[in-house]
């Protein structure tokens, strides 16, 4: 078992090194293979972790809760690694022959993708709050560079806002970690090293004031990276400006990993303070995030910003679910983490295909997607329906469990707000998406889609001075706002790349399996994780 765990820690880092040195074809193959291997390794760890905690070498500790987040991350890592093959293949056709700028871009992309996955896989395996904080800070700096990789004005702006806001938030989270140490050291002595297990053992005897302070700071600090209102402001920018595969990982696993850190603080705070205080804190942040994001979904003009606000909404649902505290709600929350990773990954990857096809991120310019994209169109529709918690997808099951838990724990008002918020969000998502996919294209001679975009884009390409636009065009991203597609060519029916369809199709199957009949191994795992969270394991 130690071998498996070590491999999980080493493989993505090794992939990053290989991508740095080997030819791009090798980089592609290695990333996809290692991504799939990591998913396999996590699945191999799963049965053991649903029976007992695994601890190795002093700094690694895997329990059922960690495995839930490892599953979400490794699934997206594998999916995105395959998807990126198709995503990057199209930039190459950009100019005739090999473009050195694009080769450099691809290399950076592959190295960054693997490092990003490595940091996110490492975080849930850490045995102490301090190392967990460090791993999450590493995910921030790596993903900030990945947001900036497109080298556009928008990407530079988004990356700066992201790294500054997220780092400031993590500064607060570090303060939270320090106060958690102070609380632990009062009971365990000065040589305490912030490990979870001893802290949980003595949680009932921890002094209250520092634990309260640590919990609130942790929710605010890690909540910044998780995208909770009002500290979510970096999120739509970073999600919309990053390359689409990175957006999928940001949304599906980075936010979840930050949520994992909050759950660790919740675990000992709920025992130390009684469940009331931490639950109320989470309820306030959760309701605010859900309602704000549900309303923002209506005013969006950019497809990736739309999905980003949907992430804020789902993070709000997670926080509300934990605040209910009933075991069924907690089981729903953990299932929701998995289902959201699959659904949001699918939605972003599908959106990437649409953006590629139409050469714009503007919602108003994307029309008739279902006709033009025989596979990605329907799959994107399914992903959006899944995000809107339609049966038979996994999110329906998880949100149902959360609401049920809400009524079971006498959180009737909050459960009602949750249902209203989810419904509003569904209409917001569904309205724009059905327009994009079902409304027929207005055929304006030779100028489909992209040509309309500048006029409609208040903040888009039209507003940028000519020299900046030139510089941007030189290193135009494959699906950036000024995609490489010349707007004159009429769009024909067909998929840009099979590589961009396979992972989405697999994700759709996973969503249906999670919704219809989750495997017994998974339910065992979730049941144990719930016991851990409720302080019973």
């Amino acid at each position, binding site marked *: 078992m130690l071998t498996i765990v070590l491999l999980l820690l080493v493989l993505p880092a090794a992939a990053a090194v290989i991508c740095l040195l080997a030819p791009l074809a090798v980089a592609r193959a290695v990333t996809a293979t290692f991504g799939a291997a990591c998913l396999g390794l996590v699945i191999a760890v799963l049965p053991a972790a649903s029976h007992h905690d695994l601890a190795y070498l002093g700094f690694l500790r895997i329990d059922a809760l960690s495995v839930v987040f490892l599953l979400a991350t490794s699934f997206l890592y594998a999916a995105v690694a395959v998807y990126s093959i198709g995503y990057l293949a199209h930039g190459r056709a950009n100019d005739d022959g090999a473009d050195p700028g694009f080769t450099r871009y691809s290399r950076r992309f592959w190295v960054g993708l693997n490092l990003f996955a490595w940091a996110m896989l490492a975080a849930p395996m850490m045995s102490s709050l301090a190392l967990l904080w460090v791993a999450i*800070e590493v995910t921030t700096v790596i993903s900030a560079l990945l947001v900036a990789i497109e080298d556009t*004005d928008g990407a*530079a702006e988004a990356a700066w806002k992201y790294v500054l806001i997220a780092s*400031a938030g993590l500064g607060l989270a570090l303060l939270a970690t*320090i106060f958690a140490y102070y609380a632990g050291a009062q009971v365990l002595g000065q040589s305490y090293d912030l490990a979870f297990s001893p802290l949980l053992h003595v949680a009932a005897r921890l002094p209250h*004031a*520092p634990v309260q302070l640590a919990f609130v700071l942790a929710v605010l600090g890690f909540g910044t990276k998780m995208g909770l209102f009002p500290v979510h402001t970096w999120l739509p*920018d970073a999600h919309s400006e990053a390359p689409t595969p990175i957006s999928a990982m940001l949304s599906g696993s980075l936010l979840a990993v930050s949520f994992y850190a909050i759950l660790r603080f919740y675990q000992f705070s709920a025992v130390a303070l009684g469940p009331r205080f931490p639950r109320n804190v989470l309820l306030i942040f959760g309701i605010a995030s859900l309602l704000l994001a549900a309303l923002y979904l209506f005013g969006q003009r950019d497809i990736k910003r739309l999905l980003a606000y949907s992430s804020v909404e789902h993070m709000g649902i997670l926080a509300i679910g934990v605040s209910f505290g009933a075991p069924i709600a907690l089981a729903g929350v953990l299932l929701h983490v998995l289902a959201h990773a699959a659904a949001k990954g699918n939605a972003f990857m599908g959106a990437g295909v649409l953006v590629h096809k139409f050469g714009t991120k503007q919602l108003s310019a994307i029309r008739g997607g279902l006709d033009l994209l025989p596979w990605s169109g329907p799959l994107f529709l399914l992903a959006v329906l899944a995000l809107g918690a339609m049966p038979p997808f996994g999110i329906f099951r998880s949100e149902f469990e959360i609401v049920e838990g809400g009524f079971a724990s006498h959180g009737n008002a909050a459960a009602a707000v949750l249902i209203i918020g989810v419904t509003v969000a569904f209409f917001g998502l569904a309205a724009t998406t059905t327009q994009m996919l079902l409304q027929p294209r207005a055929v304006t001679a030779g100028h489909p889609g992209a040509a309309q975009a500048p006029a409609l884009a208040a903040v888009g390409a039209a507003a940028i001075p000519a020299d900046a636009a030139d510089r941007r065009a030189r290193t135009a991203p494959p699906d950036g706002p000024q995609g490489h597609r010349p707007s004159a060519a009429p769009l024909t029916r067909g998929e840009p790349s099979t590589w961009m369809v396979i992972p989405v199709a697999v994700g759709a199957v996973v969503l249906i399996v999670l919704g219809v009949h989750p495997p017994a191994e998974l339910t065992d795992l979730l049941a144990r994780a719930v016991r851990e969270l409720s302080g019973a394991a």
Partner: protein
Amino acid sequence: MTGAAAVAAPSVFSGSANVIAVGVLLAEFGMFRQALLRDQVRLYAAQSTLISVLAVVVAAARHLPDLYVLAGLSFALKAVIVPAVLRRLLRGLGARGEGPGWTDIAGSGSLSLATTVLVAIAVAAFGFFSVAALGIHSPVLPTTALAISIAVVLVAFVLMIMRRDVASQAIGFFSLENGVSLTALVVAAGLPLILEIVFLFDLLVAVVVFGLLIRVHHGRAESLSTADLTRLRG
């Protein structure tokens, strides 16, 4: 030095500890008005040095040998390496016609200096007095130092919000980390050295990434100002 501090404790010890902590806070206030990037980095180095000195004082007075190592590493990293890395990454960012390499960041405050300082004083006072209500007492340093460290963290937020140039915002984050280090010195002096080293290494990675992103920003905007970072909204 060990003997002197041990004999002089407690009053001289807590007095000097508080004076150093106040110095850290004053350095934070100084960052509101620095007009040159170079001076901003120097002020950060000075602030980091003060924290290392405080670590040495605590190590001597409380017989915590680990803290000597921490002080040395922290000084080497935050007062020498980080400023050097920043200087190297930001070299050549001066706009045409300015002195070689050093950019003017004067007047990047969004409010006048006096108003900003008043806001910062109010925020610092809030932090200072709210800590007293928590009832957290440290075995190694007077509680005043904890209150001051929280004030430093809050003022660092004001700095990041009020100054509209990427360099000051980055320095704001690094000094926020200094404030957290000060807090750690007060309430977590016994934190295992290995963790402190990991934190410091992590800071170095963050500094490099901040530096790279500042370069990216400068390459796009041709200034360090964040005034034009307003396209992404809604």
